[in-house]
Each structure stands twice: as structure tokens, then as C-alpha cells.
């Protein structure tokens, strides 16, 4: 048979909660409980509030460049599929998932306030600091998952990244390592359609981002990224597969409702109509609609929640802003478990040039001067 089929693949897209708040009851079965949906709605709303406040903090000079997460809060669902011992290896647009996994939200603010203590993940929490070099951290997730497998630990590593990140070579190597090592990893590509000003169409010629997982024998899913049910379901299945040694790639179709960061102005490159259309798919709106349609949520509850969120966010901001200034010595002491002598000298003198730091030279110098009050001829 001179021509035969060498490989075939089909990738499915899943949506459970639609834009009008309508639910596919069959697919929703055994996914989120009513309580969980309420909790997620409240949590997402808090995150949205925090995001808005962070924007204002930046504008008033109290925060550095900040990437808003607005519109991508449904990613929080992943944290419900994760167990406490599981790892989160994030980029910067899955704050909602990190908080739910236990990260104190003020740490994210601290990070963007230019303070390393924002990355000082509390003991017992399996979260890595937000990774600045795009696309590079998924390899750490591959290694973390693989380590769990070697040690026989019951852990899964979730890693989050954007559509743009898939173009980096490290994305490719991470997926390939996870595949061959049968590492318990879940790759979550938040396809928000933009990488700063670069639209999805210029990022890659592939029809979906999900299909990139085909190159590594990963299990592959595409889901509505504004749908807390679909994300939850895909993530939970991915946990089960991961524990059997089968990593998964999930593409969540969502949209970046804000600018790339506070340093960006998306009006320079983005069609306002596209943004308007995306606003209608907002995860908060559809979740609220769903809750209301099931009588799980009322205007009163909304109002009360808004007040609670305000207070909570004020609290978070206060914790981030009221922290004492870091010690200058920290930048030296944090480099190694034990500080090497020359680095200690730099710390103690706060100088790199060394005149005056070596008394024995001073002695010599005085000796020299005593012998030849004028400059020595060799130095003429």
C-alpha cells in the first residue's frame, strides 16, 4: 500500500456555559456545585476589583507597570480542579487562579511595586513566582512534574501562558519533555488573542493553539476560556490523565479586555469593535446571569458583595503599601545560601572601587611618600 495514513487527529472545542448564562446540563453534570459557582463568582468579582484598583495605583504612581487580568478571571476554575499539593507555575494573567490556590494577593501587588518579597512564596504553598521571560517557565513545570514522578509524589504541575508564549522555543521543549518523561503536567494556554500588539494571526499560522500539543503526544483540548464550567471540567480530566502519566494541553479561548499593561495603549492597534464584542463574552457577566437564572444570586447579594470586595481590596492594598522598605543588604544576602567574601565586602562598603578598603596599601603608600616626597620618577 504505497499511500497510507500515518497519523490522524481531531481536536474538540468545549463550551458548557454560554454567553447568555445558558448551561449545557449534560456536560455540566458532576462539575461545579452551586456553592462553588457562587464562590467563583464572588472571587472573580474581587479579582476584577483588585485589577481596577491596581490600574489606579499605577496611574497615581504607587505601582509600577501592571498587567491587568480583566476578562480572564474564569481561569480561577483551574484552582478548583487542583489539589492543595499541586503546583501552579504561572505567568501574570492567572492571578485569579493563584489567589484561589492560596497566594496572598498583596504579593502580586508587591511584585509589581518592584519588591522581591512579592515572590517570597510562603512555605507550604506550591506556587512559583510570576515569570518575566515569556515562555520560559513551562520548562520548570515540566521539571517539577517530573520530579514528583521520580519521587512518587502525588502532585500535578499546572502551568499557564499566553498565545504569544507558544512561539518561544522553550514552550516546545517543555511540552516535549513533559511528553517523553510522562510528567504530570497540565499546560494551559490562555489564548486572549493578543501578545501586546501582535494579533493571533501574526503569531502563528496554525488554526488553533491546541493543535500545537499534537507535536508531543499530549492530550489536547480547546475550551471556552470565559466559561468556568468548561475550564473546570477540562482541568479535572487533565489531573486524572496527568496522574496516569499523560500530560494535557488546554487552550482557553478568551480575550484581553484591558491594555497589555499600564505602559500600553491598545487603541493604537486594536479595533474597538473587536473589544466591544469581547466585552459581551465577559466571564463575570455570564456567570452572574447563570446564577440569577437559577435564583442563586440577587441584586442585594451583589451589593453586599461589592462592599465586601471593596473592603477586602483596600486591605490587600494596605498590606502591600504599608510594608516597611526592604533593607539594602537584602540584595547581597539573597544571592547565595552563604555570601562569598568579596560580595560581603561590597555589601559592607556599598562600593565596588577599592581605594581605602585595603589598609595595608595605605601603609605602603605612606612609606612610599616618606621616602620620596615628590612623585617617584617612574611616575613622572
Amino acid at each position: 500500500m504505497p499511500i497510507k495514513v500515518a497519523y490522524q487527529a481531531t481536536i474538540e472545542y468545549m463550551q458548557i456555559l454560554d454567553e447568555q448564562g445558558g448551561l449545557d446540563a449534560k456536560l455540566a453534570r458532576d462539575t461545579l456545585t452551586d456553592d462553588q459557582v457562587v464562590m467563583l463568582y464572588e472571587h472573580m468579582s474581587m479579582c476584577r476589583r483588585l485589577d481596577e484598583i491596581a490600574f489606579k495605583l499605577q496611574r497615581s504612581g504607587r505601582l509600577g507597570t501592571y498587567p491587568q487580568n480583566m476578562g480572564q478571571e474564569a481561569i480561577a476554575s483551574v484552582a478548583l480542579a487542583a489539589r492543595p499539593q499541586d503546583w501552579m507555575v504561572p505567568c501574570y494573567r492567572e492571578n485569579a487562579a493563584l489567589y484561589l490556590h492560596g497566594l496572598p494577593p498583596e504579593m502580586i501587588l508587591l511584585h509589581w511595586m518592584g519588591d522581591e518579597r512579592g515572590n517570597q512564596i510562603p512555605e507550604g504553598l506550591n506556587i512559583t513566582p510570576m515569570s518575566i521571560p515569556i515562555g520560559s517557565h513551562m520548562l520548570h513545570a515540566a521539571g517539577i512534574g517530573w520530579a514528583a514522578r521520580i519521587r512518587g509524589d502525588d502532585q500535578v504541575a499546572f502551568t499557564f501562558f499566553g498565545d504569544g508564549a507558544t512561539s518561544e522555543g522553550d514552550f516546545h521543549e517543555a511540552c516535549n519533555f513533559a511528553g517523553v518523561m510522562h510528567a504530570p503536567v497540565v499546560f494551559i494556554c490562555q489564548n486572549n488573542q493578543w501578545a501586546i500588539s501582535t494579533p493571533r494571526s501574526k503569531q502563528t499560522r496554525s488554526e488553533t493553539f491546541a493543535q500545537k500539543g499534537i507535536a508531543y503526544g499530549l492530550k489536547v483540548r480547546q475550551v471556552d476560556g470565559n466559561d468556568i464550567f468548561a475550564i473546570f471540567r477540562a482541568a479535572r480530566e487533565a489531573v486524572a490523565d496527568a496522574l496516569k502519566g499523560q500530560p494535557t494541553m488546554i487552550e482557553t479561548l478568551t480575550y484581553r479586555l484591558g491594555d497589555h499593561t499600564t505602559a500600553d495603549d491598545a487603541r493604537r492597534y486594536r479595533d474597538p469593535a473587536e473589544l466591544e464584542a469581547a466585552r459581551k463574552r465577559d466571564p463575570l457577566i455570564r456567570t452572574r446571569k447563570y446564577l440569577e437564572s437559577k435564583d442563586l444570586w440577587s441584586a442585594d447579594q451583589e451589593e453586599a458583595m461589592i462592599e465586601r470586595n471593596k473592603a477586602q481590596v483596600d486591605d490587600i492594598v494596605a498590606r502591600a503599601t504599608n510594608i516597611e522598605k526592604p533593607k539594602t543588604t537584602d540584595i547581597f544576602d539573597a544571592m547565595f545560601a552563604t555570601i562569598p567574601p568579596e560580595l560581603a565586602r561590597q555589601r559592607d562598603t556599598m562600593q565596588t572601587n577599592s581605594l581605602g578598603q585595603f589598609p595595608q596599601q595605605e601603609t605602603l603608600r605612606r612609606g612610599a611618600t616618606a621616602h620620596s616626597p615628590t612623585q617617584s620618577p617612574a611616575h613622572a
Partner: protein
Amino acid sequence: MANLTLVQAINLALTQEMEADESVVLLGEDVGLNGGVFRVTEGLQQRFGEHRVVDTPLAESGIMGAAIGLAMNGIKSVPEIQFEGFLGPAYDQLVNHAARYRSRSRGAITVPMTVRVPVGGGIHAPELHSDSPEAIYAHTPGLKVVMPSSPYDAKGLLISAIRDPDPVLFFEPKRIYRAFREEVPEDEYTVPIGKAKIVEEGTDVTVVTWGAMTIQCINAMDSLPEDLSVELIDLRTIYPIDVETIVESVSKTGRCVVAHEAPLTAGLGAEISSLVQERCFLHLEAPVQRVTGFDTFMPYYKMELDYLPEAPRVAEAIAACAAY
């Protein structure tokens, strides 16, 4: 003649070279419609079209490697790497390919490429957006490395770089992207690669620096006693180093301070210090002093000014060196 910022001067150089030579092509993340995250390429895609100012996928090795291929096949490629911290993924292509093709092929294949990279600290940016890796590339045979400290030089050096038949790494100190303006001729002119500039003449101490540190050094000089005469040299080109200008100066002054943002150990300051010692040994009245970043990372921005060798630290070193 117009009064331009560094950003504008670079933009002007790009515009003029693209006008003059249609084989010049810009590529990089967000360099097109958005004009680059620092707006250095603003308006160029509108002017020269999507084929000559190209938004690429988010992949620095890809940008560098494709730019090498472009250069090998008749295009003068001008890739932008968004921040110096993201040269990391492109390191292999730059060091093991761009720098080596001419030598490995004994001239049969050349890479006329100019890599533009914003560099350095002081702008309150996130991690990996404030580093100074110039020593790494000075240690890489086959690359020319340039870092202007003023709009005038930036325009002239960039034109030289684009016309250079070999790969040039063009570092743009972001701290002074918009810090001041300078008269920049509209006309085409070049500033030669490999020639330092004596910013100020003096007789007591030679100060060698480059990039945004030039401004810190000028500020440092303002705070020194009137009768201390400092000769300030702005290297402008990191490789090949203009040894002659430095040696001539230190032979005269007998004292030398070198200042840079990058960490001390194995930084370019060490090279300057060694060269001065080798060539001016018998003239030296004091050990060459290095005023640099510490051997730690550039800290997150709350503490970046504690890390950077700001003017007071430079002034202190000059004074100590002079008093030795």
C-alpha cells in the same frame, strides 16, 4: 537641524537608511503598527509597509535566526530585541552563528545585520528589563558592539552600523531615551564605529564610561572641586575598544576611573582597567578604580538606585583616585 531625543534620533536614522536602501528591513515584536514598546519605530510601518517593518512572533531566537538568514540572502536586517534581558533566548544564534559566519566560511557568507536592543536600568521596569550585558558580547569575537550616549551619536552610529558589512549589536540606553534633547542634523552623517569621544578634556583623572552612565559621570563632575580637572571619555563603541584614546588620556592624567552599570566581576571595567595597566603602567599614579553595579542582580525597582552607580558614587571614586 532639529532638537531631538535619543528615540527620535534613532527613528530618524532608521527612516533615512530605509529611504536610501530598500534592502533594509526591520523586524521584531511589536515594531510595526505599535511602533515598538518604546515607540522607536513609530510611523515606520505606515511609511515603508508591512514587508519592511515586520511584526514577528514572540520568539527571540527566531527573530535573530531569521534575521541572520535574511542578511545571508540580500537583506540588511535590523532586528529589535524588546529588552536586553530577552537576548537570552537569542544568545545562541547571535554568538554561535551571527558572529561566526564570516570567519567559519572564510568570508563566503556574511551577516550584515544590526541588532537593536534597549539596555540598562533606571526606568523602574520589571525584572530583566534593566540589565547591562555588554561585557558578554565584548567577549564574543565577531561582533561589534555599540552604545551611544547622545542623540547625535545615536543617529551617526546607527547609520554606520546598518552600513557595516558585519553584525553589530546596537545597545540603546533606555534611561536616556527621552531624558534630554540635542541638535541632530537632518542630513545624513556617520559616527565611526570604534572611536571613543572625549566628552570633556582634563588633566588630573581620566574617567572612562559609556551609555547612560555618561550622564551620571557628567553629573559627578559637577559635584567635584573646581580645581580637579577630569577628562571624560565616552567609549561609544564597546568592541572594538578605542584603546588609543584611552591610553593617550591616561598617559597624560596618570589616573583612571571606569564606570558602568553592569556587575563588577568580569565586567568591561576589568578590560579597561587591564588595558590601562598594561599600556600606561609607568604613568599610573593610582590603581584604576572601577565604579560599577554590584555582583548581584539588578534588584527589583524599589532598590535599583541603591544598585546603580549613581553620580555620587562616581564622584567619590574620582575624588579618592585623585587624592591617592
